[in-house]
């Protein structure tokens, strides 16, 4: 089969690789009908995440049709349409029982490595380094889904791929980012970044009742989509983020702040970002945490910082004094996708939201390497790219 494989920094190729096989009775093989390039794939593409190996199949946002089922899988049958969450979950461990699916204790098959790096393992993830299991990803014609009797979400035929594909990652990620802010009707929610996750966080914050949602970015296309979702926008090229947030909150600061940027904050955003970039170059720091610093500074005391943006390792010069003295709450983590999928699927079915609004580019799997470049460089107003392996 064909698959998008990682071969090093900025080197993704469409290779021919062996077809996946059932390896465990609970497995299923999915024929991928749609998959997407996620912003967090770019951290792999840019070489900022450790634990990738030459030839690894990328992709953790995908859906398709079940073509083979293991004998122990009573949930799925051949022909089912499913969206597959990017987190692989067993459904039985203590964390899964609590709904903390992204820290499932059983599904990371490289648990010892993860224990060493993180202290305790997190869940296995599709196509996202050997630190999280080294599972082949879904930017491929076919993919093996472990624990397929738990994670995959069955999709009715009446819903198009485009409407439901993002249930596997960015829709629940944006939703969780807003939900864990515990939004009150008087709250201003400020969201750094206006990429795909941020677009869903904006709409989720609105649905959850935020008085005001503010999106911060520099690209006019992304800001226009943010405004469409109900956000007031700040273009940090034109305005001071700190000053404008103060203006919009009568000098109090936003009660809830969401970091939808993560480890690759714009390298020339500010002096601290430039220093971070220099440190990255000489391996003194792995991530560029400008957004974290700015959120801590801007947030209203007793506010909440929600961090769906991916961080990989070590960050420097985090103003922990202001964080502590302002009494800020920090909530973060990979998304507990299965915690949200049923409710969000129902919102799609009831026509409350149509997640396909975020798709700006669609192409064949073979065009994936070029699309990585387009998405990475934010060319052609690319916000979300969907690939069609079949």
């Amino acid at each position, binding site marked *: 089969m064909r698959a998008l494989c990682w071969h090093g920094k900025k080197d993704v190729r469409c290779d021919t690789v062996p077809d996946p096989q059932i390896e465990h009775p609970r497995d299923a093989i999915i024929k991928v009908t749609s998959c997407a390039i996620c912003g967090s794939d770019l951290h792999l593409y840019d070489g900022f995440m450790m634990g990738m190996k030459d030839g690894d199949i990328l992709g953790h946002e995908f859906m398709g049709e079940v073509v083979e089922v293991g004998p122990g899988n009573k949930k799925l049958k051949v022909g089912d349409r499913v969206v597959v969450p990017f987190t692989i979950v067993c459904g*039985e461990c203590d964390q899964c029982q*609590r709904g903390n699916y992204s820290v499932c204790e059983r599904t990371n098959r490289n648990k010892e490595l993860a224990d060493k790096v993180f202290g305790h393992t997190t869940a296995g993830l599709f196509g996202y380094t050997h630190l999280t299991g080294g599972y082949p990803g879904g930017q491929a014609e076919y993919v093996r889904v472990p624990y397929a009797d738990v994670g995959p979400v069955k999709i009715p035929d009446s819903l198009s791929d485009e409407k439901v594909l993002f249930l596997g990652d960015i829709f629940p990620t944006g*939703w969780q980012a807003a939900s864990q802010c515990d939004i009150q009707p008087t709250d201003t929610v400020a969201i750094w970044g206006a990429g795909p996750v941020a677009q869903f966080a904006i709409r989720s914050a609105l649905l959850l009742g935020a008085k005001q949602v503010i999106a911060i970015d*520099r690209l006019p296309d992304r800001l226009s989509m943010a405004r*469409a979702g109900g956000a007031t926008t700040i273009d940090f090229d034109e305005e*001071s983020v700190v000053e404008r947030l103060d203006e919009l909150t009568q000098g109090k600061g936003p009660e809830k702040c969401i970091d939808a940027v993560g480890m690759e904050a714009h390298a*020339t955003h500010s002096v601290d970002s430039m220093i971070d970039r220099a440190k990255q170059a000489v391996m003194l720091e792995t991530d560029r945490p400008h957004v974290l610093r700015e959120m801590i500074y801007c947030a209203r005391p007793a506010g909440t910082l929600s961090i769906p943006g991916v961080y990989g390792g070590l960050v420097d010069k985090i103003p922990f004094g202001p964080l502590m003295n302002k009494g800020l709450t920090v909530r973060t983590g990979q998304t507990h996708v299965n915690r*949200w999928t049923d409710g969000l699927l129902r919102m799609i079915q009831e026509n409350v939201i*149509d997640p396909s*609004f975020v798709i700006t580019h669609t192409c064949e799997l073979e065009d994936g390497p070029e699309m990585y470049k387009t998405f990475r460089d934010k060319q052609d107003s690319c916000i979300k790219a969907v690939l069609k392996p079949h």
Partner: protein
Amino acid sequence: MKIPRKLAGRKAASRSAARALGWFSIGLGLAELLAPGALARFLGLEGRERLLRTYGTREIATGVGILNSSNPEPWVWGRVAGDALDLASLGAAFVRSDNKLGVAAAIGAVAGVTFADIATAQILSELEQKDRTYYRDYSTRTGFSRPVASLRGTVREVRGPRSEPARSGTRPASPLQAS
């Protein structure tokens, strides 16, 4: 409540930085033109006064270019190139100077200014690129079938518990049960 404006966006800040670098360039250029002997002695570049005057002329030219141009970006990149020349000359001077500490301090100062030059030039380049780029307008892509304003706070009407498609013993999870 009106907040007094003190801070600027990246565009205005980079323009201000460019102007500051322009004035700095002129000041340094004048020093190199008017007192090359003293500078040469301090840096261990005795006999290279003419070179220093040339550098001074270059500094003044780039400074005037930055201050008088509607687009200072190429002039600031010109400063970066000049910084490279300065560092090369100072490196050579360091080898033969008796005042190594002084030359090292000069190298450090030029390196700092080089960082500021590169940062300013990069930001100006990005802004110039942004001005030249066509961006699509996605302002009709709401994602909602109803007007945005009518949806504020309505989520509790549509979300709710639903059984988790999991194996026996798994506790149902839903948006309402988020912890």
